[in-house]
């Protein structure tokens, strides 16, 4: 029975658990999208490199070890791919020692082999990472239909490196592990190597077992945002593969899983992770394909929303500092100190700075969009985890808290391949606008509420905090609304529309406009709202462009269209055109 507690050590030869005669040399990397882990195995009959990775330096390092092994005992050398994504194999192309014809036999599942032979930039993700690939021939195709047609019949294969290998196919359905499988024997003194076809992350994904180890490639990451939906990804296949591997783990014959990225996973942990991955995968039925065009769209969206997220978090942290300042003045320093725990301004500043630096380098070095989208996903995820929305919404303007929450959630939704929820209903435009303006003009906490809470110390503290922390945006602004003469019904997503109008008003008022004019009118099938104010023109064209692009996107999600006009006399007019219901 495998113990499962002994972690393998990176960059050292050690016995491969449960596989007498085999030794393993793992190369475990920190997780990134550039290169996978590599696992080098030697048996008395063969040397097998699982996933050479994406970095030439990594491949050179491994080849040095392979050369030493072959010097000690010359044996055929095989390179085995868990799947043909460039981060797992491109080092073959860029490393002379690996690229030499005949030096190694490349083993890939047959669909992956076909991709490599035609130099398929989409399936290998070379297009996503803007990498050029040249066609590569795989000498040993795995899980082939012809061998499946003759199940359980050992087939002897002879290779250019002199190896004589015996392969036996076991089609899915033969056992409760419902996966196509092949057993490969490299020689009389070698433990068998089992290959399971586990499509989902890619069509050619396989899991490889030797002894107690299971090499799983990217199976456990396949439902992650930015990975799910890659060209070749299949939700249905992934769920079946996870089920099959779950059954294999339940046999108790595996002690550790060797992933394509990151540390080894004890089987008990993997058994807990599999249902979670399956649950995530089950929710991804209709996600959009994550291809280079979509990565570019998401990266642009990421930059636009991060500009807004940055402003919103700075404003929220600023509000808390402001409340602390006022409380200090009122000699309530204890309460003021407690507020500091609601937003860790320094941590958030660091996260936002890190994204900005990454984004600047990305543009300078003309990086690939997928990296920027992934970085934004990381930052947004961390912000979501540190953001105590409920507590904050009791103290500062809940509208700001809610908008921030929605921005973060929308990014993750889009990043995962979905469309953010939208609820278009029929509404009277004038009534919507009036209600919103009223909400942004009247203080949410009345003086009566403050006075009536004085008997209860806790209630008073809460009301006091909220009355300091919520400042109506339009309290000192002269707002004129020119309404349409009659009700003007439009189809609109109310929440997105309310957010849009708030962002526009913040943009105008924040930049110094003391008077805002809102004109609502209808003409034919259109209803138009124009919001104008006077504010100095932006000194930062790039940020201004991002803001306009963000507002335009938000307006589209509200079910309308937006144009912004910044005239020479510092007058800014935003015009929203919605579909009128006549």
């Amino acid at each position, binding site marked *: 029975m495998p113990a499962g507690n002994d972690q393998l050590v990176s960059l050292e030869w050690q016995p491969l658990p449960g596989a007498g005669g085999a030794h393993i040399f793992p190369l475990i990397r920190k997780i990134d999208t550039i290169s996978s882990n590599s696992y080098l195995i030697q048996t008395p009959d063969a040397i097998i490199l699982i996933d050479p990775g994406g970095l030439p330096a990594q491949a050179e390092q491994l080849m040095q070890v392979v050369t030493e092994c072959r010097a000690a005992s010359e044996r055929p050398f095989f390179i085995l791919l868990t799947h043909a994504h460039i981060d797992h194999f491109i080092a073959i192309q860029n490393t002379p020692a690996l690229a030499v014809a005949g030096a190694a036999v490349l083993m890939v599942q047959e669909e992956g082999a076909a991709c490599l032979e035609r130099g398929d930039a989409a399936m290998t993700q070379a297009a996503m990472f803007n990498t050029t690939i040249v066609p590569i021939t795989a000498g040993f195709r795995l899980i082939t239909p012809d061998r499946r047609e003759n199940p359980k019949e050992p087939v002897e294969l002879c290779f250019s490196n002199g190896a004589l290998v015996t392969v036996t196919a076991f089609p899915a359905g033969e056992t409760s592990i419902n996966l196509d499988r092949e057993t490969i024997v490299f020689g009389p003194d070698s433990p068998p190597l089992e290959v399971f076809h586990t499509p989902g992350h890619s069509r050619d994904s396989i899991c490889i077992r030797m002894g107690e180890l299971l090499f799983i490639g990217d199976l456990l990451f396949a439902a992650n945002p930015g990975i799910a939906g890659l060209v070749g990804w299949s939700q249905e296949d992934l769920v079946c593969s996870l089920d099959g591997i779950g059954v294999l783990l339940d046999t108790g014959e595996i002690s550790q899983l060797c992933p394509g990225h990151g540390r080894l996973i004890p089987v008990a942990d993997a058994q807990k992770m599999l249902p979670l991955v399956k649950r995530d995968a089950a929710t991804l039925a209709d996600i959009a394909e994550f291809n280079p065009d979509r990565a570019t769209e998401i990266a642009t969206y990421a930059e636009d929303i991060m500009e807004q997220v940055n402003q919103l978090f700075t404003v929220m942290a*600023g509000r808390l500092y402001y409340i602390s*300042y006022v409380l200090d003045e009122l000699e309530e320093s204890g309460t003021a100190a407690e507020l500091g725990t609601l937003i860790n301004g*320094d941590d958030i500043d660091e996260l936002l*700075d890190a994204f900005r630096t990454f984004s600047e380098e990305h543009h300078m070095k003309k990086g690939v969009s997928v990296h920027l989208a992934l970085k934004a996903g990381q930052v947004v995820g961390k912000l979501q985890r540190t953001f105590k929305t409920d507590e904050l919404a009791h103290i500062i303007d809940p509208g700001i808290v809610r908008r921030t929450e929605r921005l973060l959630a929308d990014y993750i939704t889009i990043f995962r391949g979905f469309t953010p929820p939208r609820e278009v209903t029929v509404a009277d435009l004038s009534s919507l606008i009036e209600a919103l303006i009223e909400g942004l003009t009247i203080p949410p906490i009345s003086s009566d509420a403050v006075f009536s809470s004085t008997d209860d110390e806790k209630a008073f503290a809460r009301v006091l905090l909220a009355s300091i922390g919520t400042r109506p945006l339009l309290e000192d602004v002269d707002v004129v609304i020119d309404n349409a003469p009659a009700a003007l019904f439009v189809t609109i997503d109310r929440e997105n529309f309310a957010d849009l109008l708030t962002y526009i008003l913040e943009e105008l008022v924040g930049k*110094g406009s003391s008077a805002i004019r809102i004109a609502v009118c209808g003409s034919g099938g259109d209803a138009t709202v124009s919001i104008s104010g006077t504010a100095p023109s932006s000194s930062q064209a790039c940020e201004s462009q991002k803001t306009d692009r963000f507002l335009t996107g938000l307006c589209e999600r509200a079910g309308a269209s937006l144009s912004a006009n910044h005239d020479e006399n510092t007058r800014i007019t935003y015009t929203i055109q919605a579909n009128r219901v006549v």
Partner: protein
Amino acid sequence: MEITTTSKDNATILSLNGRIDTATAPELEQAINKIIDGGQRKILLDFAGVTYISSGGLRVLLATAKKLKNPGDKFGICALSPEVMKILKLAGFTSIFSIYASEGEALAGW
């Protein structure tokens, strides 16, 4: 961030150029504290060259306001870009600080 310190009409003016973020906010705080520790109680921050302010920067501004609240003390900010003005306004800071269009306008009122 570049900080240039000048004196005019009994006030010290710190002209700032660049971003006030995680890396530079402590530098600004040190520069301000040094001036206050030297006995100067009238400080004007010229933000004409400031392109961005983080929450760390806002905290430095509040800390300075706390230190300069005795009768006769003066603390103000001038020449804000629209972007920085927006942050200060939405955070509620415009009700704490004196904000001026220019250095001249600030000093004329002091």
